């Protein structure tokens, strides 16, 4: 730390007609430089993180021939949306020329129901495990927690067996089932920890008031839940949308979610690589979670940090 130099001209007892306070000015200067440094570092990191995204966005708007000429990383000298249209509706992947459209809707058809169902189940589990404890409920909670730390690939074989038995291989329903079950650990953990902060007296008061299990859930617990439900919905939607392993293992071709189809897009074909279309396809695949983040990000943080009762 720098020593504060004694200033002969400064005498607190003497009135200061100009209003100039050298101590305050020095403090302002120090404050400015420390701020400057912080923002410079933050800006640098932001650039490092944003450059890949920028490159992909640029390439999705450049002509393929221009990319071939000037290289993958370059400032665009051409500008068109053709690649986006191709990637969405007409690009050929392993024989079918429908673009990513079908896979995009597959992903939606998988992600939306799986998110909703796993969130509802998580909320109910959390409600029971925090407010209707029974002998062994802590054990059950701990076993469910194990699921949080279990890597997905461990359950690949059991799922293959189960989906086979149920006749749900190569179907979106199969993936919905997988993601609901795999997601319950997280949603239960989120909701249970949130509901623990709701005072038990509320439940007792409601019981004396004549409300039962479901009425307490609907009228008291659920109205307090939006912060944590937003968190679980964002978490589940992003996680399920971006999930790749189960999609690529259990579905093929037209049934694949967009993450799996993107791999097929980059791997397939003997023709020259269409970097413009690939870039656009990647962006299409990344758009939903990105939008969720942009619109819901602040609620996510708020929901995780705030308790049930303000």
């Amino acid at each position, binding site marked *: 730390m720098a020593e504060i130099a004694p200033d002969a001209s400064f005498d607190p007892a003497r009135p200061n007609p100009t209003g100039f306070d050298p101590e305050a000015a020095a403090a302002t200067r120090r404050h400015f430089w420390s701020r400057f440094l912080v923002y410079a570092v933050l800006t640098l990191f932001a650039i490092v993180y944003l450059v890949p995204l920028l490159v992909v966005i640029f390439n999705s708007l450049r002509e393929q021939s221009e990319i071939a000429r000037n290289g993958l990383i370059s400032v665009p000298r051409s500008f068109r949306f053709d690649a986006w249209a191709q990637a969405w509706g007409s690009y050929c992947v392993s024989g079918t020329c429908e673009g990513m459209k079908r896979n995009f809707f597959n992903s939606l058809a998988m992600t939306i129901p799986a998110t909703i169902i796993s969130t509802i189940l998580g909320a109910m589990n959390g409600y029971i495990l925090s407010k209707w404890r029974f002998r062994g409920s802590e054990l059950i909670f701990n076993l469910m927690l194990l699921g949080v730390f279990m890597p997905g690939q461990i359950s690949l074989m059991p799922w293959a067996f189960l989906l086979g038995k149920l006749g749900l291989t190569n179907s979106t329903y199969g993936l919905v089932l997988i993601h609901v079950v795999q997601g319950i650990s997280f949603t239960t953990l989120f909701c249970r920890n949130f509901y623990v902060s709701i005072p038990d007296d509320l439940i*007792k008061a409601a019981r004396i008031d004549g409300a039962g299990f479901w009425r307490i859930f609907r009228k008291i617990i659920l109205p307090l839940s939006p912060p944590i439900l937003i968190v679980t919905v964002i978490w589940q939607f992003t996680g399920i949308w971006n999930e790749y392993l189960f999609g690529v293992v259990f579905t093929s071709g037209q049934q694949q979610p967009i993450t799996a189809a993107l791999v097929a897009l980059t791997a397939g074909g003997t023709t020259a690589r269409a970097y413009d279309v690939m870039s656009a396809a990647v962006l299409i695949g990344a758009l939903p979670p990105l939008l969720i983040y942009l619109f819901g990000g602040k609620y996510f943080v708020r929901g995780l940090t705030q308790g049930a009762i303000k």
Partner: protein
Amino acid sequence: MSALMIRNLHKSYGSLEILAGIDLEAKTGEFVALVGPSGCGKSTLLAMIAGLETVTSGEIWIGDRLVNSVQPKDRDIAMVFQSYALYPTMTVRQNITFGMESRGVPKAAQAEAVQRVAALLQIEQLLKRKPGQLSGGQRQRVAMGRALVRDPKLFLFDEPLSNLDAKLRVDMRTEIKKLHHRVGKTTVYVTHDQVEAMTLASRIAVMNQGSVQQFDTPKRIYDRPTNMFVAGFMGSPAMNFIPARLTGSTSISVRAADGSDASLALAAPMPAGAPKDVVLGIRPEHIYRFTTDLKSRKPAVASMQAPVELVEPTGAETLAVLRLGDLEITGRFEPDDAPVMGETITLGIDMSRACLFDPTTKALL
């Protein structure tokens, strides 16, 4: 008829015994306070009356019904919680009507009941607010409104005032008392504050370590505590306990500050078979400055010398710490007549108000 009757009630969690055989009874319209130090089991007892805790053994009767296995909602009770337990997402009106809605009371009757209770508690202007927009005292009122609207057989209060600041607590205490007079419902009130119990209750059950030590009127509990625990718990500053020896059937001696024995005449003769060693219990307000005038007014006054160690004026009264043998006792004096520090005062002890305890059983003799 009793509104509440509890017989030989036990509660244990595994091998941990919380309540060890409680017998208690509240007559219709009575205000019973359960008071005791924390961990004495008073809140558990209340939760069992409400049906929020299961009964290990024993019986709970509300009115003429054995309610051991009756659901809380069917016990015809209402409860006010220490935390108020207002439903945070509902307005005050919805908080009050929630129970009626659960029971399927018609809308018109609900509105009427809300109006009645809101007028009674003066919370009409708050009905549209949420609990988060209310002050502590207002929340307290709403919580009581939610209980009152039910018109139950039994009111249960679980330390309802302990979350309020000191001044508000006294105000609300008065209001609860007024309310009870007006409504006249049987009430069981749990508190750890002995002043609350004394001021509100028609009968007090003093509890300690899972059992009722004494169940009696506030005056009897204060004047004739059945054992040293009750004597020490009720009253502030606490009753002085002074070891003493019986020197005859009507006199005891205590060790004074200078090491000599002072003899004090008892107001009534000791029963035969009393132990030789006893504990003299005397409340601070029954210790006076000795004067001949005092003696003529209170013939049972016995006198002895004691040096004054410390004086604590509180405004309304002055507390003095007095040296007696190797122990300190507290006396309560009129501020105008208070002793000064360092003085040796001649005490007048009103022996008609003294309690004698058996030091081994701790029971009142």
